[in-house]
């Protein structure tokens, strides 16, 4: 007996097991076409990953050179590095769109976001692995939290520090204080600070409960908090899904402004701010009401 999901349990964007794929392909020419396109996409993904490993050393060398140039203003160097990384993120998405691995129109997302100048805390839901790169491609002067396990790597740490990235909190509750202080310092330099308040990638349906760090940072620094809504349809690179299971058709990624919040409107109460932001996300992510069902019964309203 083979254990696994039944066809009825799987989502439309899940790849069926290879045996089922072959049987379906033999029976349905359209399905065979999809299977060929999916296989071609896997080849392109492998090629792209190889390309990344071939080209990324040049990017690291460029960043190392910028890091080694003496400067009186470290924040200026940070902005230069952030600009280089942003170009790299944009190039990656342009390439991915070109070879149809996934589509993300960062130019359209940038135009639609219309960010106010100056420091801000940016929060986002986290449907896919590419989310930090999406926000990084669109938002200039962006710093974010790096996982402690990544931040500890000796070769990467100087670059992350140069970019103004902050080491994530460890298991010690008091390490959150350091995170708050360092994030506050980044915002004090006029940068934007990205936090995924769920702390991990979102579940397939909806959101995990939000943590409070992002909202506490905004309240302590008295900077605007901007929420952005990320989507990936069909979903790709969600938690637990590998690179080698691309959906068909290719995933379309989008980034849109959800709302602006002024922490002073919430009396600098990070709990209240979190509640408002999380409620807005849950409303925005609710599935649209069915359109082809029977009409809703007319409801009388009291005068």
């Amino acid at each position, binding site marked *: 007996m083979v254990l696994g999901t039944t066809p009825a349990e799987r989502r439309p964007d899940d790849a069926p097991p290879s045996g089922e794929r072959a049987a379906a392909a033999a029976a349905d020419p359209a399905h065979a076409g999809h299977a060929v396109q999916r296989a071609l996409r896997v080849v392109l993904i492998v090629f792209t990953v190889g390309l990344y490993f071939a080209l990324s050393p040049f990017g690291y060398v460029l960043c190392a050179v910028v890091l080694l140039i003496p400067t009186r203003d470290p924040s200026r160097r940070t902005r230069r590095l952030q600009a280089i990384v942003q170009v790299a993120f944009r190039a990656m998405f342009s390439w991915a769109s070109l070879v149809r691995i996934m589509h993300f129109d960062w130019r359209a997302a940038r135009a639609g976001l219309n960010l106010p100048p100056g420091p801000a805390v940016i929060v986002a839901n986290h449907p896919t692995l590419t989310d930090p790169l999406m926000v990084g491609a669109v938002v200039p002067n962006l710093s974010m939290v790096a996982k402690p396990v990544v931040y500890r790597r000796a070769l990467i740490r100087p670059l992350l520090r140069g970019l103004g990235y902050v080491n994530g909190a*460890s*298991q*010690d*509750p*008091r390490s*959150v204080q350091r995170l*708050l202080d360092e994030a506050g310092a980044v915002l004090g330099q006029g940068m934007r600070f990205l936090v995924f308040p769920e702390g991990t990638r979102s579940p397939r349906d909806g959101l995990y409960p939000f*943590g409070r760090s992002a909202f*506490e940072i905004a309240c302590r620094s008295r900077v605007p908090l901007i929420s952005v809504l990320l989507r990936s349809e069909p979903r790709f690179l969600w938690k637990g899904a590998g690179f080698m299971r691309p959906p068909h058709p290719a995933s379309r990624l989008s980034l849109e402004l959800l709302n602006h919040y002024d922490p002073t409107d919430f009396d600098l109460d*990070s709990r209240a701010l979190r509640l408002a932001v999380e409620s807005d996300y849950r409303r925005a992510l609710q599935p649209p009401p069915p359109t082809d069902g029977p009409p809703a019964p007319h409801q009388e309203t009291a005068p």
Partner: protein
Amino acid sequence: MTDASLEDRLKHLIVDTLMLEDVDAADIETEAPLFVEGLGLDSIDALELALAIHKEFGVRTREDDEKNREHFHSVKSLAEFIRTEQAKAAATPAEAAPEA
């Protein structure tokens, strides 16, 4: 101080420090989880609680302690953590002097 009073002091400390207006200290279950489910505390609450425990009991968490999450799981586990750390401090008084 009896063992039971340490748990009660912790419950009052949690309510007072975190300003939990709609929670009575007596209603907090000693073995119930403090975070997510249970009282629904979060990382900022944990920070404030850790600072308050240091101030009240002279006990502080360590960055390299992989059991921090276990220590902060419930009132019971916090009480055990405080007792253990206070016992260690009593054994080595010079190292454990509270910070000024």
